[in-house]
């Protein structure tokens, strides 16, 4: 197998006496989706923050393109092409799509000493880029706040892809969405993957993870419970892992619900 694009080895993170993560290893390859699953409190958020450069691990190695990394800020990680799309998306609801899309990296044109924001090009390029993701924007002037949750996720994802992300870390992108909208986001994940990005998809929903994932890392109480490829696990087993296999009666109920949702999801994707 080729060298992983991004890899963490035996990461441990302590907050005072609290062990948030203990010897966690995970990796993502180019053109593949690694799903990071875990219930609340499993350590997903801590791991995302380490991957995106917000925290530094107490122990363990962080490798990007084969080189050992120690980020001082999320900006450093982003400049190398490790883009994180957080749940709040860093979008401004009152601003039009094109202003949001290019925020912080506005295309410019010069008039002698004056440098202007190339608005016409921004409007055109945002349509082109969104079209590549399979989204047809009729009006780039539409305020982002008036768009649906799935559409907003799509803008945030295509923005990261456009600005040269090699690794895309998606923090629960489907959490607040309905079935149809979640399907749309999963569709974009597959799109970005086909463009050769390595994707780390954080979720607590195995039904969202299984259709798009190539690898599954299940976290539980700060430890890796399971790390396997798609051909090594079925959707059912993944759901079982998530539930922990402890309370069987409770699990049975959850399974039935998940099955129904899963069927609807499969029809949606």
């Amino acid at each position: 197998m080729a060298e992983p694009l991004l890899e963490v080895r035996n990461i441990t993170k302590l907050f005072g006496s609290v062990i948030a993560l203990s010897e966690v290893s995970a990796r993502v390859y180019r053109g593949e989706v690694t799903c990071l699953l875990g219930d609340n409190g499993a350590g997903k958020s801590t791991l995302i923050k380490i991957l995106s450069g917000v925290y530094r691990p107490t122990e363990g190695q962080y490798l990007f393109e084969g080189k050992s990394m120690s980020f001082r800020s999320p900006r450093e990680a982003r400049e190398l092409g490790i883009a994180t799309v957080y749940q709040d998306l860093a979008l401004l609801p009152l601003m039009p799509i094109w202003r949001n899309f290019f925020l912080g990296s506005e295309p410019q044109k010069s008039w002698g000493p004056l440098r202007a924001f190339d608005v016409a090009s921004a409007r055109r390029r945002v349509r082109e880029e969104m079209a590549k993701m399979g989204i047809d924007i009729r009006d780039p002037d539409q305020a982002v706040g008036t768009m649906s949750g799935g559409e907003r996720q799509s803008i945030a994802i295509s923005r990261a892809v456009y600005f040269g992300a090699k690794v895309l870390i998606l923090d629960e992108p489907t959490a607040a969405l309905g079935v149809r909208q979640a399907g749309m986001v999963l569709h974009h994940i597959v799109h970005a993957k086909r463009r050769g990005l390595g994707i780390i998809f954080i979720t607590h929903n195995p039904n969202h993870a299984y259709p798009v994932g190539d690898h599954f890392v299940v976290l539980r109480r700060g430890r890796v419970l399971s790390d396997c490829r798609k051909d090594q696990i079925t959707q059912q087993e993944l759901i079982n892992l998530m539930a922990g296999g402890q309370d069987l009666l409770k699990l049975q109920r959850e399974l039935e619900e998940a099955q129904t949702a899963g069927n609807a999801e499969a029809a949606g994707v």
Partner: protein
Amino acid sequence: MANSTSSSTAPVPLKTDERIVRVGFFQGLFRQPEIGALIGAIVVWVFFAIIAPENWISVNGVARILDSSSTLGIMAVAVALLMIGGEFDLSAGVMTGTTGLIAGMLAVKAHVNIWLSILISLAFALAVGYVNGLIVVKTRLPSFIVTLATFFVLRGANVGVTRLMTEQVLVGGIDRTAGFGAARLLFNTEFSLLGATFRTVTIWWIVITIVATWFLQRTRYGNWVFAVGGDANAARNSGVPSDRVKIALFMVTSTAAWLVGMMSIVRLRSAVASEGIGQEFIYIIAAVIGGCLLTGGYGSVVGASIGAIIFGMARVGIVFAGWDTDWFYSFLGIMLLAAVLVNNATRRRAEAVSVAAAKARTEKEEET
């Protein structure tokens, strides 16, 4: 979801598409933040045109309105930029007095060259703007409170220092200093056009409005201003230097106050300690009438200038109508409320239209 128009059930999506295009046109018109102010300005103009047509509809009437709106307009433009950036500056009004007093006292009492006095005054304004901004971004306190403190400090110092230096509450005789004529020419002089007397302040105001609009709409810094006002944290996450943008906006406001301070002293030939007090709310109101949201992240510089024109029209219109000027503020209150209601209604309508368009599109997605 993208190419739903190319699906086999052609008639239905086509119909929906037509509707979206039609809605898009009105949406574009009503989505402009200044549309409410423009409607308000037309209403006020027509109102006085009916009540006092002979004075109102004349070149002289226009000149009077512009004279009355200009310095307010310059401040409203700067305050609008700051408000779009998510902050207030309550020291902006008193600052017009402080900068005038500094330049006046240096020139008259300390016999400093008038141009040097003006530059020192500018340096002071920039420093106060910087400190205002720095405190706001470092402490994360509301700028309302921070600049309220600056307001009181400057208000006290204006009277205190002036009385100490001159044993009066004004600095007179600025017109007797060397170079006054040139300063007057630069900042605030009169000229005739079509038989009426206009002031260069109006030209300053128009140029500033155009430059500020270009800056806000057509430069990356303008994009950053909208972003820091909408959500400074999200802006920072996108690589915008949020703190620097906010500090710069406070400095823009204090520089505008300096400019207006200079315009005031060359016109009055003296600097008055009470100058500008109470004006800070007028600036904010003009910006709000012009479509700026009090919560930041949305607004228009042109709208703020139109807001200033509404004020100017009210001030001049009351005189032309022969009413007691005591009623000015009552009239202003009614105008403010009316303008804000119009503003609110148009914005709601624009939002409702946008939401309807988004809903129509989502429904279409569900169908395919």
